[in-house]
């Protein structure tokens, strides 16, 4: 029962963050006019989650419920969608990533991408307005610490894994090592045959 409402809360908070970003970027209804009524569907395949972005006259709305029709659909893993979200901040970034499928009007997607780029998204401001300064401060500090710890742990795990592979690689039989040995054995086999043939020839000559 909670996930649905939790999701609704999360979607509502994200929607507020985007609206605040639009206000901060001073996007006017005239700026948003080309997108009014357009719908973007994001399908997160590994989470089995659908997120719809509906463009209104003054702001954009998010929804996890079916909106019937989408002008453009992005379907992919969470990783590929995070990649595309990250690319939004980089100018002239491509829209092609591994595991990402785009259907519909790419023009709508590109317009949306350029609008997102101009937003000044400040999730901390949204959290502060929703919870008040003290709880929000605590939450933000906790999330920042958790993120830093996660980044440190991830880097450390990556390093340890690389060290392990490097130290154990002499024991490991790789494809190239195996095929090298197989070639050497074949070569040796052929040399033995050749030597055996030569011995036979020499023996027959002596007789």
């Amino acid at each position: 029962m909670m996930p649905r409402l939790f999701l609704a809360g999360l979607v509502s908070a994200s929607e507020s963050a985007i609206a605040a970003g639009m206000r901060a970027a001073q996007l006017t209804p005239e700026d948003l006019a080309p997108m009014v009524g357009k719908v973007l569907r994001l399908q997160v395949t590994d989470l089995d989650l659908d997120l719809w972005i509906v463009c209104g006259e003054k702001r954009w709305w998010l929804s996890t419920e079916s909106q019937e029709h989408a002008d453009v659909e992005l379907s992919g893993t969470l990783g590929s969608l995070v990649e595309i979200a990250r690319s939004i901040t980089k100018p002239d970034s491509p829209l092609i990533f591994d595991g990402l499928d785009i259907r519909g009007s790419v023009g709508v997607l590109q317009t949306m991408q350029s609008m997102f780029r101009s937003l000044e998204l400040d999730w901390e401001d949204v959290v502060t307005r929703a919870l008040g300064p003290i709880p929000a401060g605590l939450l933000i500090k906790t999330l920042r610490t958790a993120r830093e710890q996660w980044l440190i742990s991830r880097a450390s795990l990556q390093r340890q894994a690389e060290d392990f592979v490097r130290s154990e690689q002499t024991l490991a039989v790789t494809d190239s090592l195996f095929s090298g040995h197989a070639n050497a054995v074949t070569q040796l086999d052929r040399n033995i045959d050749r030597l055996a043939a030569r011995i036979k020839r020499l023996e027959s000559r002596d007789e």
Partner: protein
Amino acid sequence: MKETTHFGYKEVPVEEKTYRVREVFNSVARRYDVMNDLMSAGMHRLWKRVTVETAAVRPGMQILDLASGTGDLARAMARRAGSTGRVCLADINDQMLRVGRDRAIDAGELTGLSWCQCDAEVLPFADATFDRVTIGFGLRNVTRKELALSEMYRVLKPGGRALVLEFSKPTSAPLEQIYDLYSFSVLPTLGKVVANDAESYQYLAESIRKHPDQETLKSLMETAGFDSVSYQNLTGGIVAVHLGMKS
């Protein structure tokens, strides 16, 4: 013999129920939103949010919100419908409509809103007028639910969506027990302390128990003509959103 219906756990003549329900809502109108927040611990905002998302409102749509009350569902949809859309807030109770109108004025949100005092069983609109028809926490107070659903179907355009947000039956037995305890002990006490009206909130709890459960309401909607009727339970079935389409 006079035809009767339920008013909470009481049996009353059909023509008396409308009057009694009006009295209840006249009594609670001023503190309706505060009480909703208190009773549901703010959850009603998320329930309504899910309903609005399910409505899939687009700019320019014509929407009818029945039993609109203080109008929070209608205003949320009006924001999505934009300046080219129109939302009609309909309610049988003038006090509730007045509170809703005042809220809209205070919020500066009057664009695309209109008000109509009418009975959900006899809607004063032409066939196929609206793209969306919603009723939030109102159907259980309607005397002839099947008539109201038929009217919702009639005024809906082909391809349109009708949504019913209403209290329903919890899906788990332990939750149902807690919910019963809360409804019949805490709710009337809250009503007495905050709104000085324990009776109205006793009626609220009773009317929820008398309201059809998820599957029964689904059947009622299908009988009224709706296609592809589905519902989703919220908060363990305490509330359910029913969606019906008109093909």
